[in-house]
C-alpha cells in the first residue's frame, strides 16, 4: 500500500512537471489523492496508445482498402491484377475480423444509366464472390452499385473512363 502511495506520488510529481512544461491549459491537481491522478494518467497513456494503433490501422486500411480494382468496358469479369489486389484485401480482412466493408460497383459514363447500374452491381458482386471464395464471410461484404453516377475522374476521355470502371471498398 505504502509502496503504491510513493509510486503514485512520484508519478504525480513527474506529471505535474510535464503539465507545466507542455501545457498550461489545465490547473495542476493539488489536493487530489495521487492514486486517482495516476489512474487518469495511465488511462491517458492507454488512450494515446489506442489512437496510435488506430492511426496505424487507418494507414493499413487505406493502403489495402482504398485500392480500387478495375474492369474492361461493359465487363464485370475480374482481371488478373484485380485478383491480386483482392487477395491482399482478403489477407487484411482475415486479420481484422471485426471490420465489415461496402463494395461499390462503378462504371464509366458511356452507356445508359440504368444498364450501368446493373453492370456496377455485377462488378461489386464479382469482387464479393471472389472474397467469399477466399474465406471472408459474406455478411461482412455488402455491395452497392453507383453505376455511372460517381465517377472518380469526371473528365470525358479514355483515361478517366479506365479509372472509373472500378470496384471501390469502404468501411461499413
Amino acid at each position, binding site marked *: 500500500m505504502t509502496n503504491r502511495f510513493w509510486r503514485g506520488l512520484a508519478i504525480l510529481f513527474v506529471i505535474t512537471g510535464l503539465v507545466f512544461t507542455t501545457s498550461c491549459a489545465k490547473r495542476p491537481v493539488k489536493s487530489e489523492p495521487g492514486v486517482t491522478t495516476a489512474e487518469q494518467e495511465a488511462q491517458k497513456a492507454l488512450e494515446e496508445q489506442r489512437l496510435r494503433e488506430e492511426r496505424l490501422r487507418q494507414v493499413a486500411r487505406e493502403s489495402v482498402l482504398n485500392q480500387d480494382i478495375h474492369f474492361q468496358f461493359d465487363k464485370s469479369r475480374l482481371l488478373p491484377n484485380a485478383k491480386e489486389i483482392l487477395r491482399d484485401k482478403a489477407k487484411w480482412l482475415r486479420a481484422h475480423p471485426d471490420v465489415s466493408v461496402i463494395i461499390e460497383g462503378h462504371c464509366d459514363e458511356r452507356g445508359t444509366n*440504368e*444498364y450501368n447500374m*446493373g453492370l456496377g*452491381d*455485377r462488378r461489386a458482386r464479382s469482387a464479393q464472390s471472389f472474397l467469399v471464395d477466399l474465406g471472408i464471410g459474406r455478411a461482412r461484404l455488402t455491395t*452497392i452499385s453507383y453505376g455511372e453516377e460517381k465517377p472518380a475522374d469526371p473528365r470525358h476521355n479514355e483515361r478517366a473512363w479506365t479509372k472509373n470502371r472500378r470496384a471501390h471498398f469502404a468501411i461499413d
Partner: protein
Amino acid sequence: MISIGCKNLSRSHLSIIFVLFVTLVVYANRPCQARVYIDINAPYLRKIPTAVPIFKEMAAEQGDAQLSQMFSNFLTETIAFTGFFKIVDRESFLEDPKEAGLTGRTINFKNWTDVGAELLIKGGFKHEGDVLKVELRLFDTFGGRLIVGRRYTGRLKDHRRIIHRFCSEVILRLTGHPGIFNTRIAFVSTTTGPKEIYIADFDGHNPRQFTNTGTITLFPAWSSDGRWLAYTDYKHKRSGLYIRHIKEKRGTAVKLEGSCITPAWIPGKFALAASLSYQGNPMIYLLSGNGKIMRKLTRHWGIDVAPAWSPDGKEFAFVSDRSGSPQIFIKNVEEGIVRRLTYKGNYNTSPQWSPRGNHIAYVGLKNGHFDIYLIGVDGSGPIQLTRDAGNNESPTWSPDGTLIAFSSTREGPSRIYVMNANGTDQRRLLLLEGEQTNPSWSPRLAGN
C-alpha cells in the same frame, strides 16, 4: 418540400373550383361532328394550316393589348406543341382586326381560305379587376362552320389553365382522343447540386423540385393513375426504391442490398416491376404498390433491368445481357415466354412501350453515339429517330402516343427534348441550371 407541395395543392384546388365556373358551350354541338380531322395513328401526319389571330379585347379598357398578345401567343404555342398544326404567319392575314368579329356570321371565311388556313381559332376576352372572361372558338374555314366554342370565367392568373382547357377540347374534337395538356413530365436535375427529381408541366413550364434527398435520385416512374411516383435514391449510402404519393406526405421505401432500380408501374394496377439484386443478380421483380416483393418476373444469371409494360399489362419489355451484350427482350407474364426483340447493334437499352401498343422506343449505340430508335413489337424496323446530335437517351411517350420526350447532350450539358413520334420537330423542352436526365411522362392527370 412537402409543405410547399401542400400549399400549392390547396391553392390549385381553389383555382380549379374557380375555373369550374366555366360557362360551358356557347353553341350546342351538332351531330355532324363525327369527322376526324387528324388521325393520330397515321405514321406521318399532314400538319393542318391553322390561323390564330390576336385575341380581341371585348371591353374598351386600356392596356390590354399586351394581354391579348400574350393569350393568343400562348394558345398558339400550346396547339403547336402537339405537332398537329402548321401555324399560319400573322403577317399574311387579310382580315381587318378592327372589323373582325368572333362569331361565324361576322367572319368572312374567304379571308382565311385565301391565306391557306384550314382551321381558325378566334379568341376574345375582357377582365374586370381580377376576373377574366374568355371566349374561344375553333372554325373550319372551308366549311365555314364552328367546330368548338367555349366561354370561360376565371381569375387572371388562371389564363394558362383556361387556354389549356380549350386546347384539350380542340384536340379531342379534331382527333377523337384527349390531348396531353393535363400531363406533366418528371425528370432528374442537378439544379441544386445533387440529383433530385423535378416535375414540370407537359410543355416544360413551371418546373418544381419534388425530392429533396441531397444525394443521387434517379428513374422517376408514374403510376398509371398519376398519383404515385416511384424512384431510386441513395439516402444513407444504400440504394433504395421509394414509392411516394404525389400530393400527400406518404409513401414506402424498399431498402435492399445491391441495387433497387428502374421501377415501372403496371397499367391500371397498384403494382410495379423493378430490377432488384438483393438475391445476387439484378433481376426483374414484381412489387405491390406498398413495396411488398411479390415474386420474380425474370430469372437468369445475366443483368436484367429496365422493365416497360405493354399497355394491356400482359407483357413487358426489359434489357438483359443474357445473349452477351445488352439487348431488349419481351416477356409474356402469363405464358412465361421470353423472346429477344432487338438484333441490330451491340447495345440496346431503355425500352418504352408505346401507349398504342405497337411500338417500342429504345436507345441504341451506333458508331459511338447513343440514339433513340423505334422498333415494331413484332421486330419490324427499327427506324432511327435521332441522329448527329450528341447522345440521346431515356425516351418516354406522351400518353396519347404522339410525342416522345428524351434527354440529349446535343447542346453540351444533358437536357430534356421533345419530338413527334416519327422523329420530326425535335425541340428543347426547358432550360434549367445543371443537367437534366431521365424524363418520365405522366399519364393524363385529373383536376388540372
